[in-house]
């Protein structure tokens, strides 16, 4: 795959919405721009509309309203085969009657590319995806990971201008998923092809994405880089869906040197936007609470779960539950009384 041959295209989604025949709304009107060469991940729980949006970009479903542009071209009315896309399915969708080779060649044969060129490209893709030895196998004779590699090779064979992937790793084992996640990230970087990638797995999203779009109930909750999404979530949904988080009840109180956030067991300077005195919920990541010796506040350890590289500690203070991650060389036990400190600037006011 010569990098120069790939022509990256931007995607523009303008006011696209989808209501199914039975009246359920899958997507509220959505506007979204994907830059040329960008890897955009649509992240959300099942039923949030992320797959529907992806399938509409592919032309596999029709939007109820709105327009979809790929490059300068309005593709809203075009059938999938005329959109210049590649689509990777969750269950791979390899053609069961064709060998690995035939699956990969299928798109080229339809395009009536010269035999020489077909052959060269096939070899290139087999090598790229590490499939050369499996070329004569039927899909049923391949493992899940191998099938996924064939599915990607089959799509790349057609020189798509944009790549659409619908939970491509969901059907795989945990360990293999982790491995292929890295491989995919490297492949994306090598290809520089505009990619829209759908997943419900936030770790996968963060490892792969240039930008993450978090969706919920047919609406975009937040769009940003993995760091923005994780460190500055804009809604409680995003805070809770992406990564582990503690949800804490708090009161905003007036004090001499500006407002104060009262967690019940601990008081901190208030840095949220609202200036009113009110009951609010704040969020705090497990890694932003740490064990200390003297300062901070006291908590009782309710549960300690060993997770390999760290312990997940569930502590309780002033009636609030706190989940903390501590290193695996820390000595800590159920029932211990510990001193904890909070990284003030990491408190999330969503």
């Amino acid at each position: 795959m010569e990098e120069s041959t790939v022509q990256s295209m931007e995607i523009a989604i303008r006011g696209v919405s989808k209501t199914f025949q039975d009246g359920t709304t899958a997507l509220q009107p959505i506007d979204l721009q994907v830059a040329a060469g960008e890897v955009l991940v649509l992240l959300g729980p099942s039923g949030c509309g992320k797959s529907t949006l992806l399938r509409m970009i592919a032309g596999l479903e029709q939007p109820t309203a709105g327009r979809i542009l790929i490059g300068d071209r309005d593709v809203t009315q075009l059938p999938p085969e005329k959109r210049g896309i590649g689509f990777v399915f969750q269950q791979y969708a390899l053609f069961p009657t064709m060998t690995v080779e035939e699956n990969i060649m299928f798109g080229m044969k339809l395009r009536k590319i010269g035999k020489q060129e077909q052959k060269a490209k096939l070899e290139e893709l087999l090598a790229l995806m590490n499939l050369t030895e499996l070329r004569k196998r039927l899909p049923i004779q391949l493992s899940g990971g191998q099938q996924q590699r064939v599915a990607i090779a089959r799509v790349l064979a057609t020189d798509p201008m944009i790549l659409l992937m619908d939970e491509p790793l969901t059907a795989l084992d945990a360990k293999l998923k982790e491995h292929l996640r890295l491989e995919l990230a490297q492949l994306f970087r090598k290809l520089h092809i505009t990619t829209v990638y759908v997943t419900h797995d936030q770790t996968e999203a963060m490892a792969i994405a240039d930008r993450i779009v978090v969706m919920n109930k047919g609406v975009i909750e937040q769009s940003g880089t993995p760091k923005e999404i994780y460190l500055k979530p804009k809604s409680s949904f995003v805070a809770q869906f992406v990564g582990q988080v503690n949800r804490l009840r708090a009161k905003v109180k007036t004090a001499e040197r500006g407002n104060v956030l009262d967690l019940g067991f601990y008081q901190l300077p208030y840095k949220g936007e609202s200036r009113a005195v009110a009951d609010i919920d704040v969020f705090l990541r497990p890694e932003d609470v740490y064990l200390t010796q003297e300062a901070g506040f006291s908590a009782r350890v309710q549960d300690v779960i060993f997770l390999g590289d760290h312990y997940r500690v569930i502590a309780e203070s002033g009636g609030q539950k706190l989940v903390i991650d501590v290193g695996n060389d820390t000595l800590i036990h159920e029932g211990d009384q510990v001193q904890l400190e909070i990284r003030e600037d990491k408190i999330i006011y969503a």
Partner: protein
Amino acid sequence: MKRMGVAVFVLPIFLLFAFFFLYPLIVLVVASFQRGGELTAGNYAQIITNPQYLHSLWNSLWLSLSVTLVALVLSAVLAFFLARHSFPGKTLYFTLLTFPISFPGVVVGFMIIILFGSTGILPMLSELLTGEKKLVFAYTIAGIFLAYLYFEIPRIVMTLYGAIKDFDQTLEEAARTIGATPWQAIRYVVLPTLYPIFLSAGALAFSTSMSAFGTAFTLANDFDILPILMYNEFTLNFNIEVASAIAVVIGLVCVGINLGYRVLVEKEGRS
């Protein structure tokens, strides 16, 4: 222990089956090799050497084959259309379509006579329009051909409809996204995958056409096919031996077709 229990329960049914299923078959085959109490292959020789018999065999074979092919093509188009579109009145259409499945062959023959008999609707119509009575083919092989189509198509449509409905549509979607038009997706992805169902439906249609009696009996007039021939030998000539031989030939052709289709499918599955 568990296996014993099952065996005790099922064995009687097995034996009953062996008796009721295999015994008549054996008697039939034995009868077909006898003539006047002597063992002979003469009954079979007769089918091949006697021009009338050979002609009947020939009629039966190509009639069944052509009905099967035409019915498969028409049914495939209909089944695809029905499986992939919903339209008002689809359920009603379906019910009407499956109507003929439960019709006696005699009734179907009877309908063909109403349509294409010498006083049938279409001949009358053609006489009215052209002054000449055309389309009187109820009692010819064309009439039987139409009658068989009439009862094969609903069966094949039902079989294919289920298979097409169950077919994993993401395969078609995959084909579309890598550049196939709807027809190319069907041609290169759907049909090769559903191929065994087509073979199976075809084999069944062929067997049914080969052995159908009622319709042919109602319509047969100036030509013969094997089931009619057999009936005549049995009822008119009281020639049980020859009738048995014909029955065995029909049976062998049908079983051969069914075995052939299975071998094809298994070979496909393995390669």
